[in-house]
């Protein structure tokens, strides 16, 4: 009907406008987005591997997946170059927080790896 075709047009228009807007973002942001995407991709590979060979040392699997998800999330939200970033904190403080959180994350992962 008319609604579905307009929805399809909407989806197409949406996709195009998103693409053009994203192409306009600065290169710095795209690199960080690539980093986040890479971390999530690594997590997905680990999940597929677990599905193939079974999950026996479950703690190792969990620590691997969660370290990827953790770095992705931390990078995503410490991204002070992003326009979405909350403006009340100075960038140096945000970076220091980012380093501290990553340190804690990786220490716990190393303990949990088994």
């Amino acid at each position: 009907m008319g609604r579905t075709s307009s929805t399809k047009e909407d989806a197409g228009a949406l996709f195009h406008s998103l693409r053009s807007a994203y192409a306009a973002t600065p290169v710095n942001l795209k690199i960080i987005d690539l980093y986040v995407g890479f971390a999530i991709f690594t997590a997905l590979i680990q999940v597929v591997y677990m599905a193939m060979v079974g999950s026996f040392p479950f703690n190792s699997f969990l620590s691997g997946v969660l370290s990827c998800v953790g770095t992705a999330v931390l990078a995503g939200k410490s991204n002070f170059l992003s326009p979405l970033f909350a403006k009340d904190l100075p960038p140096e403080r945000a970076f220091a927080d980012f380093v501290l959180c990553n340190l804690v994350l990786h220490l716990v992962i190393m303990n949990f790896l088994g």
Partner: protein
Amino acid sequence: MATMPASASDLLKSFKLKTKQQELLIRVSILCLVYILAFITRLFSVLRYESMIHEFDPYFNYRTTLYLTENGFYDFWNWFDYESWYPLGRIVGGTLYPGLMVTAVLIYRILRFLRFAVHIREVCVLTAPFFASNTTLVAYFFGKEIWDSGAGLVAAILIAVCPGYISRSVAGSYDNEGVAIFALLFTFYVFVKAVNTGSLAWSLASAFGYFYMVSAWGGYVFIINLIPLYVLVLLITGRYSMRLYVAYNCMYILGMLLAMQIRFVGFQHVQSGEHMAAMGVFFLMQVFYFLDWVKHMLSDTKLFQAFLRITVTSAVAVGGIALGLGMVSGYISPWTGRFYSLLDPTYAKDHIPIIASVSEHQPTAWSSFMFDFHILLFLFPAGLYFCFKRLSDATIFIVMYGLTSMYFAGVMVRLILVATPAVCLISAIAVSATVKNLTVLLRSKNKVVQTGSTKGSGGSKSSSKALLDQSQPFQKNGAIALLFGAFYLLSRYATHCTWVTSEAYSSPSIVLAARGAHGNRVIFDDYREAYFWLRQNTPQDAKVMSWWDYGYQITAMGNRTVIVDNNTWNNTHIATVGRAMSSYEDEAIEIIRSLDVDYVLVVFGGVTGYSSDDINKFLWMVRIGGGVFPVIKEPDYLVNGEYRVDKGAAPKMLNCLMYKLCYYRFGEMMTEYGKPPGYDRARGVEIGNKDVKLEHLEEAFTTSNWIVRIYRVKPPNNRW
């Protein structure tokens, strides 16, 4: 702008302090006094009796702490205990929450390093009051975050003396909750701070606070469900922001990872139904973040609305399908009985008698609420009103915490403890806001005179006050009267709390006190007498069978192996003991010999009138035993549905092992003037079977007031 009478302000002015410094001095001195007050109000039992550990569970914690000080952390973490649950043993390292023990040993090590030669028992006894004082400080900062520093001060004072908290944190009550409530409030405070500031550092602190809570108490499930619920409410009410995203994500990921380091918790965060809400909200947050990014990218709002609808519905659908698949395939375990009975209070009674039998798990009566909260009961709705007037991220949190914890406090008596910080904070908001409004009224009258002369300097605010004052001339008097009323109420609250602490919550349970005939105080120290008799007069490898209530105390003080103890992890083993206690002596001796038991211990209150003895608990033994072994039927022990021990009692009751062990030689005993021999003072009747003969057991020890009775199992007869 003097805030106190002239003489005090002159005194402080003599120190050449500015107003801000005066205010800081007052605040710091109030906090110091509250800190000391919270500590000393919990010391009643130490002053009246001695510095000892109370109740049942703290003895296990004390024994593990002792083991930790002697053997170090690695041995403690991998400890397999041979001395309890004979012959099964217990993996202690993997089945306890180490937070409390590690904290106490840390304090002990620090004091030893400073060359204070304390014994670990003293540290254990005073850990709970110390952490209660720390909780008052956290309550101050939390109140300051939610409302203002005045509310923080009132919150600190209220929580310092509130009986709901004191009941589980007196000196000697060395139990998980003493440390856990501090961890709970600290985690909540730091999380709200993280949501308010959006800083990763505060979220990291909340992850650590959550880790401390997980290491301290099983009630951490409350945190991991309340915080996602709060985030969900914020998302639904349109308060999504980058600060919320930062705070929740960091706390969830890091907190989950840290929590899984505790062996007892294990992988529950990804496998148990109780933790799935947090994961669901985590994925929902990612969806919201993505939507926010798309909204920022697009400039066309109509397109965005369509996209929004599609994304949200598909995300919710995918989440629902994943959850359904997980639960159906059994990968995600359903809610365990302990927590399911919170949602459905009738569940435990029908399915899990052990949970239903614990007195702390019963629903709460109104009198308990009044007893534990006093004026906070009506200040709580008043505080809710103030919170709704000034809605922000922080006040929404405290409202949710208050409402959910009050619901759970109504379901289970034990959970009044979890509701106490929320009730104190919300009541503090009510008190502080009311007192502030009243004092503003008081001070405004003086201001009217001044702004009358300097026109236009006060602005609209004081002129509106002037308007108010002219229409109601007695406002100042009314304000003074109301302030006096508030002062009276708060002083009554303090009196009530101290009275409750002194009368109800300061008894060690292991030492009983009563008034003698001449009004003098009589102390019954029978429990420790019996346990030390066991320690000194039985072989090292003797095994003691008793009901599970006393297991921890026997291993801690008697230092002997027990069959079942308070951990109650193996229902069949407890049911075996229950079956042995409720069978005839010939059947019971088979079970006793199969378990290698050397001594049987029972608690009997017939001589002293002590009502928490084994005869009063006997029906639970029958029910739990009958739950696993259908040969034990509860109606056999009752007469017309009534539980009796006198002449009209059921024959099975008069000849079962528990009856014989409790009333052996009791038939000749004169307990009360004017009553026949064999008069049971706890039940108030003369017992039915006075001529008790034991064939396979012999009496080994009875304490001076007959409260604890120990029997030795005779070796089997020679078969000449």
